[in-house]
């Protein structure tokens, strides 16, 4: 028995198992990330996954979406979009100022509320100069003369209305837009979040 254990230890089987499990885990992560990516619909730089939590998802999609959005609501309950780059494809960074321009009547239609947050690139909240890191449907956003709405994304307070300002962290960041009880236009896929445009001063 002890001879067998010594052979096992020396044969490389144990090391093989450890390496195999590690490779299996890494492969799983790569496969699930790739599947989640194919399930992500990106419009204007905003990616959304619509199929999470649907009963018809196969084995692979089910696992991939559980990895991408663990215990998430179904899309009809809460729609989420994330953006990590601007309309030119450049990574969002607190060194720059950005504008999100919603044409008249094009703020996210919801039966509850919507919220836009800036977080670090992983998704954790970060401290900002005003202690608030979101703009939402209760922010009292000021409209432009043509009824459109501009939200300014920059680290320092802009000259415009402060309620239309989303303070961004320094360094790379990620935007997340949530719409709770999204309206028909969102659920049907007709609604498009406008691109994040860099403001060059």
């Amino acid at each position, binding site marked *: 028995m002890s001879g067998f254990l010594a052979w096992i230890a020396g*044969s490389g089987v144990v*090391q*093989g198992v450890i390496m195999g499990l590690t490779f299996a885990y890494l492969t*799983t992560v790569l496969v699930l990330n790739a599947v989640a990516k194919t399930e992500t619909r990106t419009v204007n730089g905003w990616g959304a996954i619509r199929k999470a939590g649907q009963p018809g998802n196969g084995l692979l999609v089910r696992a991939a979406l559980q990895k991408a959005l663990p215990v998430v609501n179904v899309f009809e309950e809460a729609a989420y979009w994330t953006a990590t780059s601007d309309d030119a494809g450049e990574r969002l960074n607190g060194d720059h100022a950005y504008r999100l321009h919603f044409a008249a009547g094009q703020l996210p239609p919801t039966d509850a509320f919507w*919220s836009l*947050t800036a977080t670090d690139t992983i998704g954790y909240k970060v401290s900002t100069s005003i202690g608030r890191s*979101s703009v939402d449907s209760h922010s009292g956003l000021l409209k432009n003369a043509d009824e459109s709405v501009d939200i300014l994304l920059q680290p320092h307070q802009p000259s415009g209305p402060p309620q239309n300002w989303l303070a961004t962290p320094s360094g790379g960041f990620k935007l997340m837009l949530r719409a*709770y009880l999204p309206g028909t236009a969102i659920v049907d896929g007709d609604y498009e979040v406008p691109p994040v445009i860099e403001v060059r001063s």
Partner: protein
Amino acid sequence: MNRLILKYASPVTIVILAIFAWVIYSRVSGGGVDAIILLAVTAVAVWVVGTFVFIYFWPRITVGGFKRIFVKRGLGGGPIPVNTIYAVPESPSQSASAGSVIATGTDDVLYFGGWLDVKAGPRVLEVPEMEGR
């Protein structure tokens, strides 16, 4: 911990793979290619089977992780007994540095969590009147 793993996934992976490479190298330099045949065969077999197992069980493993966190650690107010729903009294943002599972980066929503077990029969959840709150 959670956050560190997320942040340093690539360097950690590279270090692990480097250790593997070193193990292979020291085996080969000690006893030639023959010394790694069994290791390689085992690794490939475990790799193939393990990938299917990990993908198949991924949802169960992660949901099991949430159950463990709810029941053992809770969401800030200590362990949450089974069939109890705990309402996190404040925005989860404050606990981001502690790596809370619900550090979702927003202060616009409140989170509720708990593990429900309906094995013994259906449960009724009474939600208080929330109009105007």
